[in-house]
């Protein structure tokens, strides 16, 4: 068991988000400034109050559209003087910035940490259609530790790996395409209620089934939608958070895991590391899955969301298909509204931090036409394959 559940001493006190565009006319740094300044103001703080900066993955290969803005560049551009900053790709996935920022506060390195995620894959793909391809991550021969085992076999997108997870889930548990479609359909329904979502046209089961197959059994609308956007939150030490304008959203518990071995084909295809993440998170809190008012779960590809639903204990392993069948349970008004912004599938691939932003939007009652009644507890989780992380949020 864990001796120091440090995260309970950290709260989210403000959020911000740039436009979500496809593409944006703004630069990556302008988008990031929009999100960060909005978050700082929302928290009732000034730039001079920010003494830490965190993000995942940070400066990624000098302007790569997957993550064009690092902490050092942002700190400089916003004129921040911080005690601690950190980014980097290695960690438990897209929520790693939140977890690292909370650790910095708990360790006494900072009081108010700005956490952000910027992505410009829409404009990146306009410049170069192969910008996001796995085969484009290295020039010449592939020397990467993981991808070099897959790219020689024409795995050019993560979908080729993740599609095999879906195929295996269908095989082991009898999950049907019609059940599975409810992830994409639910996200689209929620997107119709979110003015910032990119895809807001209502989608029927027929529309979903008629869309072209990308990599069996995953169809076009099982894939998230590239965008240009930046999302930011402010983490504050609990005693400081209590004096700020927004009701503190406590980091109630975190979970994180990396499969042994680091591998996309030897990890459990139908569970990934969601069980390890889940065990860690629920062992750090008295809350239970039944206490959760909304789940904001990674939907880079829709099968990942289904696996997270099972892994976090909202239903038994293998029963995800039945759990989401018909969609009522995971829609607004159901027992576990899922990805209420429209998720990455329909609102845009803000990549991880978008889930935290939407959770806070719901917890603070700001979600207007898609608001969940009396929303107090939200779970966010992100990652796929051998890595994953989760954050349980509770409004005080």
């Amino acid at each position, binding site marked *: 068991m864990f001796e120091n559940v440090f995260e309970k001493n950290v709260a989210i006190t403000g959020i911000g988000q740039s436009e979500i565009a496809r593409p944006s006319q703004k630069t990556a740094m302008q988008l990031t400034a929009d999100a960060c300044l909005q978050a700082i103001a929302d928290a009732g703080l000034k730039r001079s109050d920010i003494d830490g900066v965190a993000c995942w993955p940070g400066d990624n290969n000098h302007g790569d559209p997957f993550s064009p803005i690092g902490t050092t560049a942002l700190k400089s551009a916003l004129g921040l003087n911080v005690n601690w900053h950190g980014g980097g790709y290695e960690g438990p996935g897209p929520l790693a910035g939140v977890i690292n920022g909370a650790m910095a506060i708990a360790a006494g390195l900072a009081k108010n940490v700005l956490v952000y995620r910027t992505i410009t894959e829409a404009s990146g793909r306009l410049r170069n259609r192969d910008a996001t391809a796995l085969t484009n991550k290295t020039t010449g*021969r592939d020397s990467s530790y993981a991808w070099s085992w897959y790219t020689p076999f024409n795995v050019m997108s993560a979908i080729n790996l993740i599609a*095999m997870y879906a195929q295996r889930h269908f095989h082991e548990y009898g999950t049907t395409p019609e059940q599975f479609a409810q992830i994409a359909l639910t996200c689209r329904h929620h997107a119709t209620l979110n003015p910032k979502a990119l895809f807001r046209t209502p989608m029927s089961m027929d529309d979903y089934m008629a869309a072209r197959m990308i*990599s069996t059994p995953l169809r076009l609308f099982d894939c998230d939608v590239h965008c240009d956007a930046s999302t930011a939150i402010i983490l504050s030490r609990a005693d400081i958070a209590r004096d700020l304008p927004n009701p503190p959203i406590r980091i109630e518990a975190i979970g994180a895991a990396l499969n042994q*071995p680091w591998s996309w084909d030897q990890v459990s295809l139908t569970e990934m590391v969601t069980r390890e993440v889940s065990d860690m998170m629920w062992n750090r809190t008295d809350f239970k899955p039944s206490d959760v008012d909304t789940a904001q779960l990674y939907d880079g590809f829709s099968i990942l969301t289904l696996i997270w639903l099972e892994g976090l204990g909202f239903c038994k392993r293998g029963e995800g298909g039945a759990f989401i069948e018909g969609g009522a349970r995971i829609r607004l008004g159901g027992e576990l509204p899922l990805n209420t912004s429209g998720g990455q599938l329909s609102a845009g691939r803000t990549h991880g931090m978008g889930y935290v932003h939407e959770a806070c939007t719901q917890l603070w009652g700001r979600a207007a036409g898609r608001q969940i009644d009396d929303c107090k507890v939200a779970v966010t989780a992100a990652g796929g394959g051998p890595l994953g992380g989760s954050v349980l949020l509770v409004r005080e």
Partner: protein
Amino acid sequence: MARKLPQLTPENSAFWQGGAKGELLIERCDDCQRWQHPPGPICRACGSRSVQSRPVSGRGRVYSFTINHQPWTPALAVPNAIAIVELEEQPGLRFVSNVVDCPVESIAIGMAVRVQFLQQDDVWLPLFVPAQ
């Protein structure tokens, strides 16, 4: 089409070049007898440094697969089949490859396959074909 090829290293070249002699070479621990892939400097299970690449049967089963329909690059011929093949030597000993020389509609989980190498430059890619 020309495939993206791996950078060869002392650790991975047995896997990528064993096909020159018609052998699929996988690393095995001399002490605990476990096979492991990808290869590394020690046995990940028991910690032994006595690990060596050794030939396997080349027989296995399709653990999962996908038929890719998206032409990610203009040169990629679609549909193409990508599979995770589990080798018969050990449960969980599996890696990504391609199933070739059969209609993509005939590929199924559990299908018996055997290795067949495709040479490109100095790399012998271990692909798989139906075993019968």
